[in-house]
């Protein structure tokens, strides 16, 4: 079980290292989308500071969703997915490995790039740190839910769009508590309640999503 997990995870990272430009696209999307908002809504620092957490979260959500749609498609097309499901371990470990690889390649760079967003929107240091922490709890949720959506829409023609429609409603709680936590810190209150709820969501998704993803993968390769 563990062997298959590491085997798939390391291979995905190796593949990403061979295609570095592809791996950087979600991060580039995140930064470009963020920089559009000051241009669109106007340069008032007060307002930008207020809407920053929500914007960063929405951009992170979209960057995750856009990159996750191809998570299983390539492996499905060349037969690797079949072989992974035939490995002497549960399909859950395959699903978990693919989602972990997606988080390492998408979620983690977004968290690292968040201070840039803090600068762009003139956020205070504590707010930026709270934002990073909320993304650290939240982006794994997005990768796990995205993986589930990708498995469910595998092999469909307009899978990418459908995936976003399926996953966005599921991801709204994470968005609300993630952006809310930063708002609490900015208004000088404790965000521990929001972080606890976000943590609870993360635990629930970590337990549930790989199970459902594994089942969806089995159905779509049949």
């Amino acid at each position, binding site marked *: *079980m563990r*062997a*298959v997990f590491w*085997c*798939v995870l390391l*291979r995905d990272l*190796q*593949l990403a290292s*061979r*295609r570095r430009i592809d791996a950087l696209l979600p991060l580039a999307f995140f930064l470009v989308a963020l920089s559009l908002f000051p241009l669109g809504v106007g340069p008032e620092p007060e307002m930008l500071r207020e809407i920053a957490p929500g914007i960063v979260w929405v951009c992170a959500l979209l960057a995750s969703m856009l990159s996750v749609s191809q998570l299983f498609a*390539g492996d499905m097309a*060349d*037969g*690797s997915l*079949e*072989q*992974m*499901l*035939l*490995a*002497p*371990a*549960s399909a859950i470990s395959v699903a978990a490995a693919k989602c972990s690889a997606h988080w390492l390649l998408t979620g983690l760079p977004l968290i690292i790039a968040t201070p840039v967003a803090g600068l762009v929107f003139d956020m205070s240091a504590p707010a930026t740190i709270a934002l990073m922490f909320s993304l650290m709890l939240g982006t794994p949720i997005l990768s796990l839910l995205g993986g589930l959506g990708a498995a469910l829409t595998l092999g469909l023609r307009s899978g990418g769009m459908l995936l976003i429609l399926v996953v966005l409603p599921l991801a709204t709680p994470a968005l609300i508590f993630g952006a809310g936590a930063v708002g609490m810190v900015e208004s000088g209150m404790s965000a521990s309640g929001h972080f606890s709820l976000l943590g609870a969501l993360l635990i629930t998704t970590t337990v549930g999503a790989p199970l459902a993803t594994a089942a969806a993968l089995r159905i779509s*390769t*049949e």
Partner: protein
Amino acid sequence: MTWLRGRNGRGKTTLLRLLAGLSDPAEGQILIQGQPQKELGDEGRSQWAYIGHQNALKDDLTSTEALRFLARLHRLPHDAAALKLALQRLGLGPARLQHAPVRTLSQGQRRRVALARLALSATAPVWLLDEPFDALDIDGIKALNAVISEHAQSGGCVLLTSHQAISIESPKPTVLDLEIFAPPSRARGLSADAAHHATGPSSQIPHSTHSTDSTDSTEGPQ
């Protein structure tokens, strides 16, 4: 060693996928050494090696890396020496080929990399091969014949489909012709050359396979 024969669309691939556990039968169940396949669990899958139409190789990996991934996934020996030897047995001896990205290989060479996994799969008693001779040249067929016949002689079991005549000298393949399992009504609906494909005197039906429609077949090392 059994050669599964039948016209296009007769269900050869479907039967192999059922036996490999990739699809579920609509009716009946698959018994492996008297045990329902579903109850074998994840570990039971190390009992067979399935190689489908698709090669399950990633374009960005080198042939050695692609083979190492498949070997690790299926818990086969994956040290450098074993991989090198396996590729050599399928005629991919030159270091240039072993370290070439899969993307630069020809169709036949990719097939050889995928089939090199068999040279590592001595521990899996049952091999399920879907059109293994596809895209192989004469040397490739010879190399694969040697690997298959060695496995069969050491007590392994091979079930393969092929549209070309199989040139393995020993052991002579048993022919399992799916045409003779076609229900009479469907057989009559086929074109006139159905008689042409009728089984010759060499055909044998393994006693364990009752009907392809109920897929109530037993598979085990012979």
